[in-house]
Each structure stands twice: as structure tokens, then as C-alpha cells.
């Protein structure tokens, strides 16, 4: 994190209430503050339903906070923008476009020529092992392949902040490691920051500069852990084993609380 650069993302006392005033009113986030620095990779861990997706949607500008403020590069987030692209938990490709057309959709909107779009999409898709299927329609791809294409689409915009909502859930372990590696490479090339929500402690340990653990609903940040190891990381290094033990304890605690709350 360089001090002169504005923060890629800053949440200040953010609260989010879903369906306010209705019987189904839900306090998803309360008084949550966090920073994502320039080029920083931040992972968010937390039990299911704690508000991770809600937080990411606020960061992407797809929702507005009920309280507090969300700033990107020093400016309040008023709406979605290609500088903050989000990959959803479930891949969302347009079924009427081929894989490469999907991936280069953002360029098409900017009026980039078809040949140039095709070339950039091919470059990005090749990194994710999808070059052979780039001319196919999305429904002919497996879920994991579709999710990789969705990540490629988000990266092609060279966002200042890449927002990932459990993007690797549909991938097997080996594929997941590869994707993480390519993701890191590409993000480094484009000088982007990453905000990643995940259930998977190892994923967070392998990728993140900083790991934030959220509390059960209403979510706020409970613990923050800085990981300074060089990448690629050996997850069995003593420091990381200790970190994993610590995180497992905290998350288990929050998961129990979330569960008890649901029962009450």
C-alpha cells in the first residue's frame, strides 16, 4: 500500500438494511469499515449469510448503503463502473453470445472493432485455458468453465478494483490453484486491487495481503490478519499454519453464533 495513492476502496461505517419497513427487514451489515489499498489483495472470510455478497455489491455500486459511505479512489460510489468489475457467485454469461463475445462485451460497448475484440478475448481466454472453446456458446461449457470466462470478462476491463464473490467454488482444487496464479499475474500486470469473498481459508491464505473475518449477521469486521509471506506461498509454512489455526477458530466461533441466531 503506497500512502500517496488513494485507497482503491474505503468503507466508512457502512450499514445495509434489506427491505426496510417490511416484515422481512434484514440488517445485513452494521457499522462496517474497511480499506483496500492500491494494488492490495484483500480476502473476506465469514460464515454463510453474514453479508459478504451484500458488501461486495455495495463496493461494485450495484447497491447503495443505508448508512455510512463507500468510496472508490476517493470518490463516493454512485453506481457500477468498468473500473470496478464484479464476478458473481453464479456465472452470468449471455446465452446469445459466444464465449469470446461475452468476454469482450465491455470492449464492444466501447466500439472496439470485432477483430481487436477477438484478439484481446483470445489472449485473456488462453490464460484461463478456454481458448479452444472461445467460439462456443456458454451453455456448452461446464459451470467451472463458465465461471472462468466470467473472471476473464471482468479482468479484460483492467479494473482498478476486481471484486470476486466466491469465484472458485465450482472449480476443483488443482484448477483453483492455477486460476489463482493466473489471477495474481494478471492483476499484477494491470496494477489492480482485489476484493475477494470466500469460504475457503486456504484460498484466502494463498492469495491475500490481508484477510478480514466478518462477524455473523449483521456483518462487521471482527478480525484482521496481515499475511506478509512471498507468493507463491507454501501453505504448510509455520506462519501460515498458525494463521490458519487462528482463522479457523474465529470463523468457527462466528458460524456457531450465526447458527444459534437462526435457531433462536
Amino acid at each position: 500500500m503506497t500512502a500517496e495513492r488513494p485507497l482503491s476502496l474505503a468503507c466508512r461505517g457502512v450499514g445495509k438494511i434489506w427491505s426496510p419497513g417490511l416484515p422481512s427487514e434484514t440488517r445485513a451489515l452494521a457499522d462496517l469499515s474497511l480499506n483496500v489499498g492500491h494494488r492490495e489483495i484483500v480476502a473476506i472470510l465469514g460464515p454463510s449469510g453474514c453479508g459478504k455478497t451484500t458488501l461486495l455489491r455495495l463496493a461494485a455500486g450495484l447497491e447503495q448503503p443505508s448508512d455510512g459511505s463507500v468510496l472508490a479512489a476517493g470518490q463516493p460510489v454512485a453506481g457500477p463502473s468498468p473500473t470496478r468489475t464484479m464476478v458473481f457467485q453464479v456465472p452470468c454469461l449471455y446465452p446469445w453470445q459466444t464465449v469470446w463475445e461475452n468476454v469482450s462485451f465491455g470492449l464492444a460497448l466501447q466500439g472496439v472493432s470485432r477483430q481487436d475484440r477477438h484478439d484481446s478475448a483470445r489472449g485473456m481466454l488462453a490464460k484461463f485455458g478456454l481458448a479452444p472453446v472461445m467460439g462456443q456458446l456458454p451453455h456448452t461449457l461446464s459451470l467451472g468453465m463458465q465461471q472462468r470466462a466470467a473472471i476473464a470478462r471482468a479482468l479484460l476491463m483492467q479494473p482498478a478494483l476486481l471484486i470476486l464473490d466466491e469465484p472458485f467454488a465450482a472449480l476443483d482444487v488443482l484448477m483453483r490453484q492455477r486460476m489463482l496464479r493466473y489471477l495474481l499475474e494478471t492483476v499484477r500486470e494491470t496494477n489492480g486491487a482485489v476484493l475477494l469473498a470466500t469460504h475457503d481459508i486456504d484460498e484466502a491464505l494463498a492469495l491475500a495481503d490481508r484477510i478480514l473475518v466478518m462477524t455473523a449477521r449483521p456483518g462487521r469486521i471482527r478480525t484482521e490478519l496481515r499475511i506478509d509471506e512471498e507468493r507463491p506461498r507454501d501453505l504448510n509454512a509455520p506462519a501460515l499454519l498458525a494463521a490458519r489455526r487462528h482463522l479457523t477458530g474465529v470463523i468457527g466461533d462466528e458460524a456457531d453464533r450465526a447458527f444459534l441466531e437462526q435457531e433462536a
Partner: protein
Amino acid sequence: MPRDMKAPIHDINPVASIGPNCSNGPKARASKARWRAFGVRLCWSLLSVGLFALIWEAAWLAGLADPRLLPPPHVFLADFGAQARHFNTSDRWLITSGEVAARPAALAVLSTVTATATRVLAGLALAAIAALTMGLAARYWPLFGKLTLPTVTFLAPVSAVTWLPVAIFIFGVGSMPAIFMVFIALFFLMLLATVSQIDAVEAPYLEVARMMGASRRQIFLQVVLPAILPGLFVILRLNLFAAWMVALFVEATGVSRGLGQVVMLVRNGFNPRLVFFTIVLLGVIGYLFDLGFRLIERRALYWLPGGGGGQYLDR
């Protein structure tokens, strides 16, 4: 979908199982397979109809079906020349000269059918285009939607038949009132359907577009439009039948000449051969319309899993 087909790059390959290294023309093979599937389906159709005709003929042979009341297919089809006389209506309207009587029977049938089918198609096409355009406009400019949609909702349930006098006031006689009536029968319903389809477009589709920096206009043309097309095709196909009924109704009233007049003859006269001849004719036309529709749909919705055209329900 601004798809420039001439661009010299990667083709779409709608067939799942075929990899990139497949050498001998996956496209050609796919189209061959599709033609075979079409041939098989046609065979089943013919077999089905043939079986039905066979039972009828058998009943006639066994003396169970009185040929004066229930003439079997070979009887009423053999009487083609005599029955085709009744189809001269649209010929008279089209040509209005003495040579009508000299026209071959097949031509009389064909020109009558064409006259009606053209009206149906024109009405359908106009209604579909107008409903799509206006539906998109109603959601693109909310003020326009608020001003128009309540009236449309109010008019949609009114039976199209009620509009006949209006059609005559405005267009007099000829093809126009029939086209207008087909249009009216479909337009309001299709407009409401378009709007509800737009409202049902999945939120993530729109969110992805917004994140990629799409303008409102781009969202409507490049995301909403392709997303609602499959639903609109279904509605169009379901309303094909209604469009035919309305066209036949208008013609039966004598406002425009065509197949509807033959149907009226069928209804008013007692001519079993003409009745069954007309039923067969309407059946064939309906089949051809449906077929044409599927072909268009398959072209427009090439991207649907299964190739579009309601294949799933067919098999």
C-alpha cells in the same frame, strides 16, 4: 445483436460435442443431422395422418361410414375439381374478369389461400414489430409507458371481433380491414407480453451490462432485446391460430374475399365433400405455417440450448 457475419474470424459453433480440432466440417454435419431429424419428423406426421385416413377408409369399406355424410379421403380429394369451384371467390376479387371460369381449379385454390395467408402474415408481422418497438419504448421512456400502457391494458381484453366496424369505417373493403383486424387481435396482447418479458429479464444480465459500462440504450438493444426474443416467439406462435381465426372471420363477413368465404359456404351449405376438403386444406396450411415459424425461430434463436423451435416438446 450486432453480429457481423462477414468478419473473417471464429464462427459460432452451436454444437456442444464438437471440439475445435474437428476437421471435416462440423457445421455441415450439424445441418445434415438437422435435415435428417426433420425428415424423420415428417415421416411420423405423414404416418400419423395416413393411419387416421386408413381407419376412415376402412370404416367406409365396412359400411360403417355413410359416404354422403362422411365421405372418405379418396372421395372428397378425388372431387377436387368440383370443390375448387367454390374457391373462385378471391379470383373474382383479384381479377374481376370473364376469364375466371377458365382458370384451373388448383390456381383458384392457391390464389384464395394466398390472399388469406398474406393478410395473416402482414397482420402478424405488423403487430409483432409494433408491439416490440412500443414495448421497448414504454420501458425506455417511463413517461411514454405511463401514458400508454393503462389504455392498452384496458383495450387488450376487448374481443377483436368488436373492432370490425371500426376496420370498415377506416379501411372500407378489401385486404386492409382484414390485416387491421389481425393486427388488433394480436397487438395489445403482444405489447403487454413484451412489457412483462422486459420486466422479467434477469437482474444479473442488466447488472453485468452496467458494470461493463453500457449506456441505457446499449442495455436495451444489446441485452434486453435478445433476452426477451424467445418469449416473444412463443407468444407469436401461440397467437398464430387467433390470427387465422380473425382473418377468416373478416372474410366470412364479406369485407374481403378469401378462404373465409369458403368457410362460410361450408358452414351454411350442406356439402360434406367441401367440408372435409376445407378441413384438410386448413390443416395443411396450419402445418406449413408452423413449420415456417420454426425455421425462422431456429435462425433467430440459434443460441437457445437445443437449437430453439420448441424441440424439447416435440420428441
